[in-house]
């Protein structure tokens, strides 16, 4: 399989020290990259170098370390902006994760709604509607639910078909003249579905709603160009794209960032401050209160460099093949039902399944005994579970370092699960 894609998976694997880890006497087969990816030594090293050479707080000093740290941090911003095709580095706000990025946008609506003179696009009133989908990660559901609860707006959603795709027939009805914002998942973390975006974006534009994407599972796996997507904002997270924990990003159009009230407030996001009153700096500073994840930004920049070197088209090709291989091999397991698209089209190398009603906890435990790490549970997508009538699934997910050999080991171990719980 690997011959067709241009990734040299063995060379990639050599960069990931953790892949040499043994679980008991079995080599680790890490099939949980959708939860968090592993980090290449290039990322760890970049962070160590920064910490031991240039560590300082940013933006507010003239000493050499401070200047180096500021350049490293702003350089990371520019690199990330470039990676997703943003027009300007100032459109990238660093957050702690995707979840914070989405909350930042939801709170822009909440805060604008109690602020006299706020930009009307962000003001929600009873009668207004917010649209998500039934396949959201909780990170792109609960912030909007809470927002609706606090403003009186109504939450609506686009459903899922039996084969795990968005039910696009509902789009024109669910998104309508009451809709103020549509926020939907780009690549679904439980189903593995890669959602087509153009129809939803077009409909949102038609009704004058803002539209954004939860791209947490997209930016690491497929080429993402925000300009091409034509959306207003996207959220993504460092730890799923070979980068460190503690950093994520919101990209939003400059003009919108300007219109949004601040979320968290404190140091480094101000223009002037008196005891009575504060005026705020321009974006992105306006949204980055306090000391940001500086070393983590350096790590994320190294991760972006790594992905750039591999080439996102190659990453995508590798995962397409991998998805095909996973689906074909998993379908050979007796009693296994894939939850999500069963063809390697419009999907990533993240596959959820049920195995003969054996509880996913037990599946995961038996696989772990063979060194195979998969995720089990609701994957922070309870509504998707309900939609497919399960409380939990077992999910195997691959990335740039994943081999077909690891999939073969997974399939063999699943046979063992069936025996234990037969």
């Amino acid at each position, binding site marked *: 399989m690997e011959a067709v894609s241009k990734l040299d998976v063995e060379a990639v694997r050599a960069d990931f020290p953790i892949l040499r880890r043994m*679980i008991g006497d079995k080599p680790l087969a890490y099939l949980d990259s959708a939860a968090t990816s592993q980090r290449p030594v290039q990322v760890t090293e970049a962070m160590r170098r920064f910490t031991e050479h240039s560590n300082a707080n940013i933006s507010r000093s003239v000493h050499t370390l401070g200047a180096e740290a500021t350049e490293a941090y702003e350089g990371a911003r520019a690199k990330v902006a470039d990676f997703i095709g943003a027009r300007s580095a100032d459109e990238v706000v660093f957050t702690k994760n995707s979840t914070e990025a989405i909350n930042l946008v939801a709170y822009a609506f909440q805060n604008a709604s109690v602020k006299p003179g706020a930009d009307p696009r962000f003001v929600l009133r009873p009668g207004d509607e917010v649209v998500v989908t039934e396949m959201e990660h909780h990170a792109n559901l609960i912030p909007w639910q809470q927002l609706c609860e606090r403003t009186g707006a109504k939450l609506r959603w686009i459903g899922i078909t039996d084969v795990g795709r968005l039910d696009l027939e509902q789009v024109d009805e669910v998104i309508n003249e009451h809709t103020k914002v549509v926020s939907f998942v780009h690549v679904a973390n439980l189903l593995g579905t890669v959602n087509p975006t153009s129809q939803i974006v077009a409909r949102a534009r038609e009704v004058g709603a803002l539209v954004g994407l939860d791209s947490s599972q997209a930016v690491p796996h497929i080429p993402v160009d925000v300009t091409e997507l034509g959306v207003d904002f996207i959220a993504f997270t460092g730890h799923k794209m070979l980068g460190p924990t503690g950093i994520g990003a919101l990209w939003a159009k400059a003009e919108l960032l300007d219109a949004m009230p601040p979320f968290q407030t404190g140091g480094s996001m101000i223009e002037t401050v008196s005891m009575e009153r504060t005026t705020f700096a321009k974006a992105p500073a306006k949204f980055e209160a306090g000391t940001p994840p500086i070393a983590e930004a350096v790590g994320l920049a190294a991760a972006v460099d790594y992905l750039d070197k591999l080439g996102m088209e190659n990453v995508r090709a590798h995962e397409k093949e991998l998805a095909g291989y996973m689906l074909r091999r998993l379908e050979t397991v007796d009693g296994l039902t894939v939850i999500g698209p069963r063809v390697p089209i419009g999907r990533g190398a993240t596959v959820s399944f049920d195995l003969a009603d054996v*509880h996913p906890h*037990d599946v995961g*435990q038996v696989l772990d005994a063979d060194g195979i790490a998969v995720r089990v549970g609701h994957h922070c997508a*309870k509504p998707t579970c309900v939609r497919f009538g399960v409380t*939990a699934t077992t999910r195997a997910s691959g990335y740039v370092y994943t081999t077909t050999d690891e999939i073969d080991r997974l399939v063999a171990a699943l046979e063992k699960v069936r025996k234990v*719980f037969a």
Partner: protein
Amino acid sequence: MNLDELYQEVILDHYKRPRGAGLRDPYEGESHQVNPTCGDEITLRVHVDGDKVADISYENVGCSISKASASVMYELINGVSVEEALAKTAEFTALMNSKGQGKADEESLEDAIAFEGVSKYPMRVKCALLGWMAFKDALVRAEAATPAGGND
């Protein structure tokens, strides 16, 4: 990891043929417990008669560990005195929280000693304790529902 240590015969047997399953009347206290990390659930009823746990009945969705644990619990504390039931609950809970250090007393815990190995798996301890937490909670509710001392 040693699979056999976790999935002992006894556990798999209780999992496949749970004792005392199903919801029954009468009962004075009912509890619903959820494990938020995996979505496992149990609904459990307690019927107290005098100072005795006269019936424990339950319905649950979950993994082998959580289902077997509820079944073992049923065998161990159904029909004993409230005091003894609470003592066994405390003993089992302590065993589960022992991080693999605890030694189970077969005299007292019977089939439940099969869970000794579970205490080494922090992610599974919650599974093993779900039913027992429901029992404790249901008992508190039963006692709140029943006039003190009175039972007739």
